[in-house]
């Protein structure tokens, strides 16, 4: 048993060792040429090369796509059109009413995404906070329950969507319960409002555990003697929560808020499998608009998709800058209070 197990580990390890051994000769030669501190460039080279080709180069090309038209993928075959793509996206009589827009789906996707992000993140932080507060108490099976809330975080978005699709479909178990209770079945995913609700619900279900963990770590970092002192002074539990827990947890709450918003704005996988963006465009979000415009429709409008990516990138930039600003201010506030 144990020998079989060691063989199972040893076999790939020998191959790996052989590969790494082969690399020793060229790296030794490079070391002779470059000298010791500069050999570091050789170690960062593979990572930098990959990032250059698949991240930094695409950022530049994305601008090229956004400012050129046509349906060709190859840059040389694309005519320069300037701001035409962005103008098409922003061609609206009334920005508050998507149906007056040239690209009405884009604006529906934007409004859907904004509504989704605010509701999903707000509710998720509320539930994550309550869960973290409960898990922070002296309760039996704390590790087990922490695992229970965390488990869906690891599941793939496609699996998450299928789990819930199976529950929510017309002849699913939820409708069976409803009919057992005497009411009529509901088309959970075919009614626009319900479909939107379930997108929020399912994505909270899938991601809440991650945010619960961060908040729980923050709660556990609050010194217990603060609470003891407050109890000694006769502070009510509500007052203790409001005057100790909430202010001290604020840095974590801000991190969770911005991380959650950055993720929520990019929602795609779960919703795409659960509702496909429907019914109609009720659950079409911005990334799905980019995917459809650029890849899924009969005519691939790469320019429009790239222009929509720029809009998404701009909103993510605003969120990231907000995060940097808020965390910096909070750190400053904290060190001020700690007098450290």
């Amino acid at each position, binding site marked *: 048993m144990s020998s079989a197990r060691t063989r199972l580990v040893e076999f790939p390890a020998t191959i790996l060792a052989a590969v790494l051994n082969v690399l020793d000769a060229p790296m030794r030669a490079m070391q002779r040429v470059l000298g010791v501190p500069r050999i570091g460039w050789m*170690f960062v080279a593979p990572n930098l090369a990959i990032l250059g080709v698949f991240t930094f180069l695409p950022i530049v090309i994305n601008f090229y796509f956004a400012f050129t038209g046509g349906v060709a993928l190859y840059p040389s075959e694309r005519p320069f059109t300037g701001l035409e793509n962005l103008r098409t996206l922003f061609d609206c009589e009334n920005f508050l009413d998507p149906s007056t827009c040239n690209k009405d789906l884009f604006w529906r996707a934007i409004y859907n995404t904004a509504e989704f992000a605010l509701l999903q993140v707000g509710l998720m932080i509320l539930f994550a906070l309550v869960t973290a507060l409960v898990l922070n108490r002296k309760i039996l099976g704390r590790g087990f329950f922490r695992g229970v809330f965390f488990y869906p975080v690891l599941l793939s978005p496609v699996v998450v969507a299928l789990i819930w699709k199976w529950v929510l479909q017309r002849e699913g178990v939820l409708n069976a319960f409803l009919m057992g209770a005497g009411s009529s079945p509901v088309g959970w995913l075919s009614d626009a409002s319900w479909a939107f609700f379930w997108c929020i619900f399912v994505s909270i279900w899938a991601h809440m555990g991650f945010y619960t*963990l961060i908040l729980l770590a923050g709660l556990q970092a609050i010194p217990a003697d603060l609470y003891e002192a407050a109890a000694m002074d006769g502070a009510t539990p509500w007052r203790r929560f409001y005057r100790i827990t909430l202010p001290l947890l604020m840095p974590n709450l801000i991190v969770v808020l911005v991380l959650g918003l950055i993720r929520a704005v990019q929602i795609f996988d779960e919703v795409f499998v659960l509702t496909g963006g429907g019914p109609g465009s009720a659950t079409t979000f911005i990334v799905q608009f980019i995917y459809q415009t650029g890849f899924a429709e009969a005519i691939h409008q790469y320019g429009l998709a790239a222009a929509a990516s720029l809009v998404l990138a701009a909103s993510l930039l605003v969120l990231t800058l907000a995060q940097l600003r808020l965390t910096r201010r909070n750190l400053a506030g904290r060190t001020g209070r700690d007098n450290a």
Partner: protein
Amino acid sequence: MPSLTTLLTATRGRNRLDWTDWLSYAYLLLGLILMFGPVLWLVLSSFKSAAALNEFPPRLLPYGQRSVTVAGQDNPLPLYRAKLADGTMRELAEVRRIGIQSTLVDPKAPDQEFKVNIRDRAPVREFQVAFGNYTEIFEKFSFGTYLWNSVFITVVATLITLLFNAMAAFALSKYRFRGRDAVFLIIISTLMIPPTIILVPNFLVVSELGLLNSLWGVIWPAVATPTGVFLLRQYMLTIPDELIEAARMDHASEWRIFWRIILPLSAPALAVLAIFSVMWRWNDFLWPLIVLSRTEKFTLQLALNAFQGELTTQWHYLLAMTVITLLPITFVFSFLQRHITTGIAASGVK
């Protein structure tokens, strides 16, 4: 009776359970049902036959119609409890059905035929586990291919991720070459550039490299993770430089120092990154969806998406595929729960 309640609500070294404790446990119980219930329901359902899945309202456990072999018939026949013309109830096997009339025989005496209206017969059920769902997906669909594609991408991308990220982390934590801090900043700054905003240009790059419909087109763009470099660098900073100095005294090459000393000592951090990487690559969806359009290159996630999108979803197969897809992650989770949760709580990444 008060003695029993005191016993049940006693806690170690504390006061009795008060109402807030009860509320906490009620909340956790609700959470347990809500978090695990749907997954459990999926797993139970995946063992039901297609006919049992069509039943509404559904049963909790898999039940199927009992069938019997009857002399003179090639295939086993479905068994029914039928109400005969004279009012008696008998368990009979159905030979054929025309319109609303069903022709039944007694399995023990198959010569005599009974004709019954289909409303007067009900299937005889028994506990039946449809393992066939799991074997047929390998026979009827190229499920093995999808599984292999997913495993290949996950394993190869994780190995390359570990090697490349560890190399970069080693240089960034143990050498002082000019431009080092700039390199670190550049790598970390890519944390703010999610793949969703560079889909179109990345598609061009991958297709120019001839990697469309190739598993490598999914692997290469994913291996240089800023998270991994950051995680490993922070860990390697804690490894004392004296070890490296001692190895240099013994004329070890820098590459040898890297993989003989630094890599083994970084094993805990490498393990955390390996878990993350396996999770990321196994669950990837949007990028593979764009790069891999030929069915024989599909990963499990893409295959699941394709099957659920079909006009008539064959749920009995789809459910079995879903269970197989969530199995490895569940397996990893149940063994490494503590490492994963503390790793995430410490680094704040996922």
